[in-house]
């Protein structure tokens, strides 16, 4: 009984390890091919990057606006509530909030939202092309799907995540100021103090945005390319894209935060 259980247990662990390693190997290969594909200018359609950037922006502008401004207001609300309980000195809320948003909250929250919106979109699109054999049809015309489909999305995602991140930061700060003023009577000129923001904060925030923006298309593109044929396939690939790119964002964010704290902050 015990022996049987142990055998099964180790077999399961071994199985899992092997599948994790195979997945890691494929993911690494896809990543390498994407980096190589950046320089294959001839394989790309003209204007494709712009088109994808528009797609990403168009798909996520409203979504990011609504979610991030709501989150900004909630975070300010919680901070002010807590400060009211302890000191009641609201003068530091604005500057500290602005600083925290730039180096911590805006990058991770924007990226989590984009992992959901953009990541799922990329996986659904490429997964659909896989099950309808359009990827094979591309290859029959001598086109590498990574060069043709994923590289433009990769470049566009890096740009757009960065731009949407800056937009989100501004929006969050405005929404936060509005909330602080409205519910706690904090003056706008007390709130909008940018002295606390250092170069370190800006560098950490930007690095995070760039890292997240590149991780999302790589992970979700990989999930799309490895879609299994069948009516469940695309749905499963989309699911995997959301969860894996969100997880990638969280872990990358943690690593960059830790390095940032130990070096430039």
């Amino acid at each position, binding site marked *: 009984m015990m022996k049987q259980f142990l055998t099964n247990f180790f077999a399961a662990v071994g199985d899992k390890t092997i599948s994790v390693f195979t997945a890691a190997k494929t993911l690494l290969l896809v990543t390498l091919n994407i980096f190589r594909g950046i320089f294959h200018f001839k394989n790309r359609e003209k204007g494709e990057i712009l088109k994808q950037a528009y797609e990403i922006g168009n798909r996520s502008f409203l979504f990011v606006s609504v979610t991030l401004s709501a989150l900004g207001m909630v975070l300010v609300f919680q901070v002010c509530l807590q400060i009211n309980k302890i000191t009641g000195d609201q003068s530091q809320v604005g500057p500290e909030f602005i600083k925290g948003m730039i180096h911590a909250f805006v990058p991770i929250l924007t990226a989590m939202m984009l992992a959901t919106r953009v990541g799922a979109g990329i996986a659904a699109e490429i997964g659909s092309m896989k099950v309808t054999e359009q990827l*094979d049809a591309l290859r*029959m015309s001598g086109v*590498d799907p990574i060069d043709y489909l994923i590289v433009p999305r990769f470049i566009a995602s890096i740009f757009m995540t960065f731009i949407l991140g800056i937009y989100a930061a501004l929006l969050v700060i405005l929404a936060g100021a509005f909330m602080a003023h409205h519910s706690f009577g904090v003056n706008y000129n007390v709130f909008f103090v940018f002295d606390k923001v250092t170069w370190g904060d800006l560098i950490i925030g930007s690095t995070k945005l760039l890292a997240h923006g590149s991780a999302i298309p790589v992970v979700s593109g990989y999930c799309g390319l490895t879609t299994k044929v069948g009516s469940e396939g695309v749905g499963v690939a989309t699911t995997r894209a959301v969860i894996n790119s969100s997880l990638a964002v969280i872990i990358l964010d943690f690593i960059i935060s830790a390095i940032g704290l130990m070096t430039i902050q």
Partner: protein
Amino acid sequence: MLQLNDITLKLDENLILDRISLNIQPGSIWGIIGPPASGKSVLVKTICGFFKPQKGNILFNGTDICKIPETKLLEIRKQIGMLFQNNALFDFMNVWENVAFPLRRSNPDIDPELLREKAWKRLKKVGLAGSEDKLCSELSGGMQKRVGIARATINKAPLNIYDEPTAGLDPVTTSKIYDLLLEIKRQNSSTVLAISSDVEGLRNFVDNIIVLHEGKIRYSGPEKGLETSTDPVVHQFVRGEEEGPL
């Protein structure tokens, strides 16, 4: 032209192709028939290099396509015009852009006007004049097949592979499609490999035929020899009898 030697392919431990050997001469027309899940589609996809067989080799004009890297394979594939089972039309392009795509990819510097003209001509040839600017999803099943055929043949590739060119079509459209394929074959003087479940229609179209069953070749040779084959599987499948090994 195309030579398969002892191809054995396993996918997830399942034996899909079992020691397949074939020799296809330039200019000939080959048909592949067999019951469902006998490995027909996998066989043609292996010829295109989408699956790597565990054993054996495939010589395409002297190049072993099992041994070359993906970048070289992409170049080889431009010499094969393929119609996929479900057409695999690009849903992010309209009809004429779909047809023009392989041509544009093999001649990156082609003049856009010429490209358009050639694609339109090809569409007219398959009887789709007037649908050039439509989206593929707006077309009926038979029309989509024709777009697929136009796309597979625009490059005048030396080898054409048609996976189920007549599946799901009515008898009148079916015979029209076979006539069209024959005409294209004569014009491009290409070699043709066609899979079909419609045994009767295919037999009128091809010179040579292969019967696949569970990944093995049960018959391979001239179409006329099919009747006299002694293999019980071939016998039953070709006659459509209920009693037998199938």
